[in-house]
């Protein structure tokens, strides 16, 4: 799938993904500790072996002229909701719609009845994600996070967007990387 001209977005292997997105979490030297999914303050509704039998994880990257320039991931936290985890675009490619294209691609992977997408947004990104159609989840406000001071951020906020994925799913259905449609 392409977003802005020349941009290709695709699913990639988790092993490469965690190494390449590690700067987002200041974990370049310890990327082996990046887990495949995180709970996100009680978001995860699957428990026990459901975690292994029902979660689908799609590590995603954006490529421009053959070079990887952006990364995100998405996984289901219930039979109705998904979570985008990590949105990282190389500094020189920011503000060009790369992140938004990746998130749209990620949400479009999911058929009904998945209908709501969550993310935790750093304070400095909240306005950006509002332009993408996300809103701060009802009743939620900024909360501090582990390395907030290190990245000069006062906190993160839970944001959500209701979506429908049926139309553009067809656009990725013929891609070798795409999950199989129902």
């Amino acid at each position: 799938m392409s977003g802005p001209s020349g941009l290709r977005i695709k699913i990639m292997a988790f092993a490469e993904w965690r190494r390449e997105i590690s700067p987002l979490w200041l974990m370049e030297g310890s990327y082996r500790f990046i887990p495949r999914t995180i709970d996100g303050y009680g978001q995860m509704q699957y428990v026990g072996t459901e975690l292994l039998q029902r979660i689908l994880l799609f590590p995603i990257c954006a490529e421009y002229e053959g070079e990887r320039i952006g990364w995100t991931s998405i996984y289901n936290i219930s039979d109705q909701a998904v979570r985008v985890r990590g949105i990282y675009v190389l500094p020189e490619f920011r503000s060009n719609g790369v992140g938004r294209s990746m998130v749209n691609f990620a949400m479009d992977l999911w058929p009904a009845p998945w209908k709501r997408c969550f993310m935790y947004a750093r304070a400095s990104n909240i306005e950006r994600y509002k332009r993408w159609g996300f809103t701060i989840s009802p009743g939620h406000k900024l909360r501090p996070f582990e390395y907030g001071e290190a990245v000069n951020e006062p906190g993160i906020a839970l944001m959500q967007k209701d979506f429908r994925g049926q139309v553009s799913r067809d656009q990725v259905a013929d891609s070798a990387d795409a999950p199989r449609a129902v």
Partner: protein
Amino acid sequence: MNPPAAFISQNIERFGLLGANNVVPDEEEREPLPPCTCEFTKGNHFRFGFDGREFNRRKFPAAKYWAEYGRPSRPHDGFLAEFTRAMSEIEDLYGPVSVSNSGNGLGRTVIAAAKDLGMSIEQITVGITGYPTPPHDEAIPNRHYQITWDEFAEFAVEFCHVAGCSEPWIALEAYHGHVSDRPHIYPVTALSLLSFGRKTSFIHNNSLSDEDIVGPPNWSYIDLEPITAINRWLLACGRKGIAQILRWSPELIAAQFDAEAFRSWLRQASNPPPPSVDAAEWRAKLGSMRSVVQEAYPNLDMRSRSLATSEDPELNGKIQELQRRLRRANPGCLGWQCYPLHRFIERLGIRFDFDFGQTEDTYGYVRT
């Protein structure tokens, strides 16, 4: 097959957490532990694991920690009756047992139940030279072991290596069973009030941040990886023991959650505090299962007199230093699972007649 199930089914082999796209083939792997041949809980209804293996240890840093519970097979009979039944079943299964005298209320609860049943039970007291030793119950046998700090630290390093746990207090608890010649009861679950970072050891409102209330109540039953470290130690040593006494049976767990003391606490704790009360104070008011136990054993002293709750600055300094050493030696062993409370109580066959916050209306349902 419903649509989500079909989509998952068609993609799980490639995009599941254990799917071909998401496994890391060149990960350094640790040797598996011997298979589980004993009952840690009744019928091993409580299970834990990492990725696709159960009753085992973490193979690599990013492995997924999980825990599961059985469903009650009958209505519970209240905490006192279920706890007494648990102790009786343990005696039937294992014969004479021992229990740690590590100075916490749960250990004293085990002893009280054993006395009521006329069980043969022995206390194991471990003193670390130079620090206070918890007083033991004079009415039952007590074995006292005195060790130096260096001896304890050496054990903790071995425990950390084998069990994948960098918490010195868990290692000290494990040491009690290590020196016992009986199957041992380790009183370390919910009532120990151990705190790992920002996660409490039992039930947690995810919308309480350190100093603030950041969203509607969202409760989880917390399963911490260190809490099952003793199970892994027992598996490695080929020994029997009870490391989750309060989880012995699904009925015992149901009795705790269905107790009026717990219901009343949860009802209050799920309401926003008055504007004049800050989150730290509000959190401090949140009780624990202690009140459930106290109701069953009203004469029991539930105050902790353990080394783990000591305020001795020298001891705490040593513990912190040891903890740092263990964490360096065994990083990435602090996994946890947040079991959504509404799903947990549903599994236990309990209903609450009050609103306790965010449920599937927010994060969606899971078809079972």
